[in-house]
């Protein structure tokens, strides 16, 4: 039943983009093609569509975001007089547009017209929306516009092109996989960030990396709670940790992290990844059976509680507050725990929540972002 739906979707795609070779590739979709093909140097083959069937496997255990990530959208280019552009874009937003962009570079007309690019979800009726918006603003006639179906791989590629090697601190570089490391002798972490968080540029990643540099002396077991692209787990191994585990609720993150580990020549004997469901914190092994790439990464014994020497969680305020007990339960007494992804103004809230669990709490800050570190209390939990 489900498969028929995939084929129906596929024929719509083939007709709008004119690709006839899609059908043979469709039979064995592989997640890794998504990340291999995004490399801007190789031929882009609209890889996002290949993973559509796989994204349906994940909808049971992840957010709906994986299926909306690759869903088509409508991109509409509207021309309207310059003086009402602002008001008109606000009106469009009220009537159903998901976003409007007003380009300051007027390259459409030298006259008083300006172009607004608007994005609508596929189900919206663009004509109705535009006419309602024009009506509410007071335009006498409906402005001219053209509708295109958005190509989702374009913007994935575009954002990836903007990554440069980043020097986090002396001797530590984060290098995208398509660039060469500027300093070959330094510790270089090669990344293909894909759609997961963690490129090394963000202040929170930097704070965590600096913290790791201080905490990891050699031989520790490390847990990256909310691993994203796997950057912290990989960095821990490069600094000398003996064993790294990365967990995340987003399957895209797990795939990205696995890919990045391979880029840095890190094997499953000292690096493991686990996909956890967002409701509970324990990994659900039977849901993994749907995933094609069943490697030894997933075969981890459950009795991993209370065995990590260093834990870092770079997520957001609310998850940190909710999962406080779970995060700390994975650490052995006296272990170092780092928390980030919080704004400086949110630090008091975190300190309140974690002071019964941690000793020696210290805060470091870059820009508006903060990182909290402490050691798990020796007695009690």
């Amino acid at each position: 039943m489900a498969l028929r739906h995939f084929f129906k979707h596929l024929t719509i795609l083939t007709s709008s983009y004119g690709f006839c070779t899609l059908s043979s590739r469709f039979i064995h979709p592989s997640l890794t093609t998504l990340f291999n093909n995004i490399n801007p140097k190789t031929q882009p083959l609209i890889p996002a569509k290949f993973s559509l069937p796989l994204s349906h496997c994940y909808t049971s255990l992840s957010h709906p975001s994986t299926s909306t990530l690759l869903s088509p959208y409508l991109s509409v280019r509207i021309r309207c007089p310059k003086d009402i552009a602002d008001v008109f874009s606000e009106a469009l937003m009220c009537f159903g547009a998901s976003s409007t962009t007003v380009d300051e570079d007027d390259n459409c007309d030298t006259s008083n017209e300006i172009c607004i690019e608007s994005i609508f979800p596929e189900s919206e009726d663009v004509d109705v929306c535009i006419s309602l918006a024009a009506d509410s603003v007071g335009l006498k006639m409906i402005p001219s516009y053209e509708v295109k179906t958005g190509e989702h791989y374009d913007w994935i590629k575009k954002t990836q092109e903007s990554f440069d090697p980043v020097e986090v601190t002396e001797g530590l570089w984060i290098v995208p996989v398509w660039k060469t490391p500027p300093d070959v002798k330094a510790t270089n972490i090669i990344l293909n960030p894909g759609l997961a968080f963690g490129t090394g540029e963000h202040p929170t990643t930097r704070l965590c990396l600096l913290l790791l540099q201080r905490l990891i002396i050699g031989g520790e077991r490390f847990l990256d709670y909310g691993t994203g692209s796997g950057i912290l787990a990989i960095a821990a191994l490069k600094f000398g940790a003996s064993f790294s585990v990365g967990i995340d609720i987003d399957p895209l993150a797990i795939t990205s992290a696995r890919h990045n580990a391979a880029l840095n020549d890190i094997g499953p004997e000292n690096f493991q990844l686990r996909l956890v469901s967002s409701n509970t914190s324990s990994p659900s092994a039977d849901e993994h059976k749907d995933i094609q790439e069943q490697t030894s990464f997933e075969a981890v014994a459950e009795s991993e509680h209370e065995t990590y020497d260093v834990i870092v969680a770079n997520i957001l305020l609310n998850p940190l507050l909710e999962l406080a007990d779970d995060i700390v339960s994975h650490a052995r007494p006296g272990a170092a725990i780092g928390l980030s992804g919080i704004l400086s103004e949110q630090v008091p809230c975190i300190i309140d929540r974690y002071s019964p669990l941690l000793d020696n709490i210290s805060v470091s800050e870059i820009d508006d972002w903060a990182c909290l570190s402490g050691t798990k209390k020796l007695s009690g939990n």
Partner: protein
Amino acid sequence: MSTLKEILTRRPVAATIRLTVPAGGARPAPPVGPALGQYRLNLMAFCKDFNARTQKYKPDTPMSVTITAFKDNTFEFTVKSPSVTWYLKKAAGIESGSSRPGHLVATTLSVRHIYEIAKIKQSDPYCQYMSLESICKSIIGTASTMGIKVVKDLD
């Protein structure tokens, strides 16, 4: 008013992008992805920043964000709280306003609701200089255009 220094160092603006994103739910997917990706802005940085700043709102409330993208691929953004109409609909528990406002009353709300909404709106950059009373008055005005009647106490 901007100082001379600010004017001299003002970065050229490439575009102004308006988006509606659920609080705490920014992801590199449509609508955020294509809109920002076009100007090569760091998607992930925006998502993280936006999610961190909207943590105090209930998840999935639609926040309106205005992003100013500069030509050097950097950006700034301001987040506005959801529109008054959205709050009113939520408070009244209705999907859409009355079809004939002024003639047909869709539902009623008490002054308490208006007061709560005004308190949230006061932290918006646009309303900070207004007194709570005037914010309430404008909310009542919006309510009447939607066909929502405001009474002193709900029975």
